[in-house]
Each structure stands twice: as C-alpha cells, then as structure tokens.
C-alpha cells in the first residue's frame, strides 16, 4: 500500500489534521489565561509611562487595582488615550500605539504630558523583531531616551538619529544595526502621534 502515490499525501494530511486539532484545542483551552496575561502586560505598560505611577515592589494584583482606581479610560475627548487626573484636571496621557514592524506588529504605550509637547516615556510591550538587533528597541537602554523628551516643533514629532550624532528636540539614538526596525518604529510613533495631536481636545 505504501507504494501507492496517494499514500504519502493522505498520510501527511491525516497527521497534520490530528496535530493541528490538538494544538487548536489546547490553545482554546488556555485562551482566557493568555488574554488575562496580555491585559496585565498592557496595564503595567500604561502605569510605567505615566510619571510616578509604577512601583516595582507592588504585586500584579495591586498594580491591577492601581490601574483600575487611578487611570481613566479613553474617551472621545482624549482620542483613545488613557489619562491620569488630579482633581479632575489631566496630568498626563498614555496613548496606546501600534503598527507594522519588520517581522510583525509592534505594540507600545507612549506617555505624554498634559501640555502635549513632551513625551514622558515609552514601553514597547509586544514585538517580534530580530533578537539582538531590532528587539533591542524594547530594552531600557533604548526606551529610557524617551523620558522627558521634548517633541520637535516641526512636522515630525520625533526622529531617530545614528548613534553618536548630536541630538536636538525630539531626537533619539537608533539601535545600531536595526535599520528596518528603526525606520518602521519611527513611522509608527510619528503617525500615531500626529493623528492623535489632531484629534485630541485641547
């Protein structure tokens, strides 16, 4: 029977069907948990970009409570950004952004001061860039550059420069050797910021 031409095709088909069914079933079973973990990662990212909100000693449950209590959900007025308020006035925005990276989607949260001119921080919480090169953008060494970064007054709020070059307003040093990721991340941040600045209510 093995000599028949259709046998390998059928065999491959049957094995693939069995294996994929098992994988699908298993990932369905764990979907809720994975979902909850992802929400938690997002909430922590929001807390991290807002000034003075993240405390590394708190447990996940406490951080979740803090997020629930102190962060206001996005409204039409904030154009999709989460807000931190004191006595009703907005202190800072946390804007979720996403876009196509080199391999897959990059998702991040950007913190913006109430005057909408200064970035308070960025956390890239989901990315699958090349390990050791593009993936370095998610590391502290790179993202720390966004803390208290004044946006440029020109048409593009931020710009990536080569390592070693002198920096002006809105400029950060790109990760060396990560040309594709840098180009795309720069575009993601700028596109999202420009769009948001147009929509958000003053």
């Amino acid at each position, binding site marked *: 029977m*093995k000599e028949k031409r259709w*046998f*390998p095709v059928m*065999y*491959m088909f049957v*094995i*693939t069907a069995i*294996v994929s069914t*098992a*994988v699908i079933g*298993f*990932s369905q079973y*764990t979907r809720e*948990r*994975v979902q909850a*973990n992802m929400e*938690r*990662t997002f909430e922590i990212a929001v807390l991290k970009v807002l000034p003075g909100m993240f405390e590394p000693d708190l447990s996940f449950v406490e951080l979740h409570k803090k997020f629930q209590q102190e962060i206001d959900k996005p409204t039409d007025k904030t154009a999709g950004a989460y807000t931190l308020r004191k006595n009703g006035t907005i202190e800072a925005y946390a804007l979720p952004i996403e876009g196509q990276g080199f391999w897959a989607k990059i998702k991040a949260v950007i913190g913006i001061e109430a005057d909408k001119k200064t970035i308070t921080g960025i956390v890239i919480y989901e990315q*699958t860039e090349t*390990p*050791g090169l593009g*993936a370095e953008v998610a590391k502290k060494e790179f993202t720390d550059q966004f803390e208290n970064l004044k946006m440029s007054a020109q048409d593009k709020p931020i710009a990536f420069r080569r390592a070693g070059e002198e920096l002006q307003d809105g400029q950060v040093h790109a990760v060396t050797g990560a040309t594709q990721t840098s180009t795309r991340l720069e575009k993601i941040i700028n596109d999202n910021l420009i769009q948001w600045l147009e929509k958000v209510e003053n």
Partner: protein
Amino acid sequence: MTNRQIKQLAYEGLWKNNPIFVQVLGICSTLAVTNLVLNTIVMCAALVFTVSLSALTVSILRDFTPRNIRMMIETLIIAFYVIIIDVILKAYWPQMSENLGPYVGLIITNCIVMGRCEACAISNPPARAMLDAIFNALGYSFILLIIATFREVLGMGTFLGFGVPYFSGQYWDKWTIMVMPPGAFFVLAIVVWTFRTVQMSQEDKKK
C-alpha cells in the same frame, strides 16, 4: 531492554556522544539562554520534554511513515510539542515566556531534536528511542547548567537569583561580560575544551 543496554544508552548520550561537547549541536540555544540558571533549567526541561516525546511519537509511527516524507512528519511532530510548551509558558508563566523570548519556538530547529529522530527514533522501537532521546537531552542539560552556573555567579554574583557569599559582596568586581553574549562563547569553549581533554586522556589510557 536489559540493564546493560540502558547503561550503554546513558553512557552514549551523557558522555561518549554528548550533544554539546562531542556532536556540537544545539549551540545557538546554549549561547542564548545560559545567562541565568533559572532560564536554563526551564529551557532544559522544555528540551527534555520535546526530544523524548518527539522521539517516542516518531518511533511509534515509524512503520507507517513513508520514507520520502519522513522529515516533514518529524518536523511537524516536533513543532507540535514545541507549540504546546510555548502555550503553557504563555498561559501559566508569562514572565518566563518573556525571558526566553523566541528561543522556546526555536527548539523546533534545535539540531538535537531532529538528530535524535533521524539517528535513532526512525529505526528503533519506542522504549529505546525515548530513552536515547532523554539521555541525549540530559547530556545537553548538564553542560548547559555548568555554563549557566559560571555565567550567573561570575557575572551577577547570584545563583538562581540568591546572592552567593563573596561573589555578591563588595570585594567581587562583577564580570558583566559573562551575562552578555560574548561571555557564553568563552565559557562554552572552556567547558568543551575541559571535557574533551578528559575524554581524550581516557581513550588514550584504554589503548
């Protein structure tokens, strides 16, 4: 299987044909995940799981699998087990999933897994195939743990996250290079060198 055969398999996998210092397979993950002992333990556990169950499945199916598509089937089976591990980590241990990053998924391309399927499982009964795979994975694991221990103690002054006397104190200037990728090359080379030297001198004595 007799006791002697099992001992022979253990000797082959752990020592004589050790995947790291004799066959030099799976080096990518060896270099990547050995900066912390905990990461290494999880990685090794994942590898033992994948190699043994893939070998078992391949061996069970060996009489039905047409020879010309055997590699496709093997890859499919390996990928299946790796995805299961990846999903488990994502659901129940997201922190570790993040630490290991893409390297869990890359177990699929770890040459040890495919190597054991091709060299042993495809032509041997299930029990033998699985034992052979487990001993090879353990041979990989103990070398990785040695490397990780040196890297973490010298580079961070800790072991499994706990401070080690002297090394975590102020008199020890931490070798940061050890937890960075180049450190892995140094330690791996020294470990391979040491083990090969011991092995060779044993072989010389036998003659």
